[in-house]
């Protein structure tokens, strides 16, 4: 196994909690965060449920201490909220002490605000300030501003695998010595744009999502933000930092099959996992828990399940679950919140339950862990897949 890159801080906000502790408590108490929407004015509000964060934009802005005339979108507010927590958790007081970067990720950036003001811009001069807040890069600039970071800032947007790719780039930049410290993660606020988008694909369930269940009907959309602080071993040693866990493996591969659907045999997912094992120098059997992408769409769970079955052909598949039943599918942020959950699984020795599961899928013999399970966990594999065949795997290991 390679030594990996140290994780020294985490921050998160999701439908199951406003910080790391609240998220962990919900995961271990089987408290799901799926509900009707309070914040979004959509005609579908009585048909579908969401992994919605109940804090309003005004709540978030006031907690961040923003001036009344700010132009933060919900995606930026959530991102700044989680990133600030991560920085505090890592005990960083002087951001410019080391060469520090921010690698954020988002799928739709400031779309939540754009869709509110789209035609209003020409009538209401107060809204013009949001025109520049639409693109993903603006979201990251805002987060950098809140945490006081000047230097390398970038944003990855590969749909639902985005944050996994941000984590991967961060780990690679530390490994190469390009950065000493990097804050990596992702953020996505709920928007009518994505709600209606997924609705047209007919992959939204009208009830609670049921990952890996034979009768699964689709996903619940969610919103969230989470960030990890990665630091070089030089800093860790010099400052005697507590290492929460390490990133030992990562890979991205492309399914090269279809713009939205995953291939039948999960080729991209299979390749991503294989490459990640190679980077980590781990054998698949050394994985103690797989945090699946598991969106509960018919296509994803079949394709991902087949890929996992291929990886573990002739061997026992490790305990696995999807946490999407708790949080909904939080798009670009998914891999970031699941990275936090993976680290917590290692720290606390738990496998989270895959909620809402009743019937095994007909296509293969895979049954997720449905009850909370305590055991020693050295390595967690986390999968994330996005539109455009984008498949990513990250492996987290005990320090």
């Amino acid at each position, binding site marked *: 196994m390679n030594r990996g890159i140290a994780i020294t801080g985490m921050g998160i906000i999701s439908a199951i909690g406003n910080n790391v502790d609240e998220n962990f408590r919900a995961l271990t108490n089987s408290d799901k965060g799926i509900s009707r929407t309070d914040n979004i004015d959509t005609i579908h509000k009585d048909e579908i449920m969401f992994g919605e964060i109940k804090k309003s934009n005004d709540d978030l802005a006031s907690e961040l201490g923003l001036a009344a005339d700010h132009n933060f979108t919900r995606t930026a507010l959530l991102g700044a909220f989680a990133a600030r927590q991560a920085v505090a958790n890592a005990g960083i007081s002087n951001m410019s002490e080391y060469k520090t970067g921010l690698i954020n990720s988002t799928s739709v950036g400031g779309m939540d605000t754009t869709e509110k003001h789209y035609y209003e811009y020409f009538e209401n001069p107060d809204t013009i300030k949001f025109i520049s807040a639409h693109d993903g890069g603006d979201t990251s600039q805002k987060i950098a501003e809140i945490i006081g970071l000047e230097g390398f800032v970038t944003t990855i947007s590969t749909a639902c695998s985005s944050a996994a790719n941000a984590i991967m780039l961060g780990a690679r930049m530390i490994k190469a010595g390009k950065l000493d410290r990097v804050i990596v993660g992702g953020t996505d606020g709920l928007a009518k744009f994505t709600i209606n988008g997924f609705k*047209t*694909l*007919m992959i939204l369930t009208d009830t609670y999502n049921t990952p890996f269940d034979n009768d699964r009907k689709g996903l619940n959309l969610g919103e969230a933000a989470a960030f990890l602080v990665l630091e070089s071993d030089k800093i860790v040693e010099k400052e005697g930092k507590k290492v929460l866990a390490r990133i030992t493996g990562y890979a991205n591969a492309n399914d090269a099959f*279809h*713009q*939205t*659907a995953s291939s039948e045999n999960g080729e991209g997912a299979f390749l991503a996992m294989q490459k990640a094992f190679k980077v980590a120098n781990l054998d698949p059997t050394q994985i103690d828990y797989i945090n699946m992408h598991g969106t509960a769409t018919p296509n994803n769970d079949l394709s991902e399940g087949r890929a996992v079955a291929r990886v573990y052909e002739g061997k026992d598949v490790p305990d696995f679950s999807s946490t999407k039943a708790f949080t909904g599918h939080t798009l670009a942020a998914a891999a970031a919140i699941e990275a936090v959950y993976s680290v917590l699984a290692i720290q606390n020795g738990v496998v989270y339950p895959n909620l809402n599961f009743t019937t095994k899928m007909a296509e293969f013999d895979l049954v997720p862990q449905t009850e909370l399970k305590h055991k020693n966990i050295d390595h967690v594999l986390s999968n994330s897949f996005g539109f455009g065949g984008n498949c990513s795997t990250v492996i987290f290991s005990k320090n």
Partner: protein
Amino acid sequence: MEALKQELKEKIIAVLNLEDVQPSDISNTDALFGDGLGLDSIDALELIVLLDKDYGIKLTDPKEGKNIFQSIDTMAAYVEANRTK
């Protein structure tokens, strides 16, 4: 029925943005998906909305589309039997 088939061909060409394809290029019996016209699952979702919008037919399960959209013949027969507008 023939008029409906012609109408469906024109609509398919328009909603799927099939530049350079003429209604006469699509036979009534040819497969629309796979080896035939070469349409895929996203096109099927577009056609589901077409049925809803223009003929008042609501499909809730995308899998239903498979049988309905086999060919212009099957599509026209389904529309004829189920249209509400």
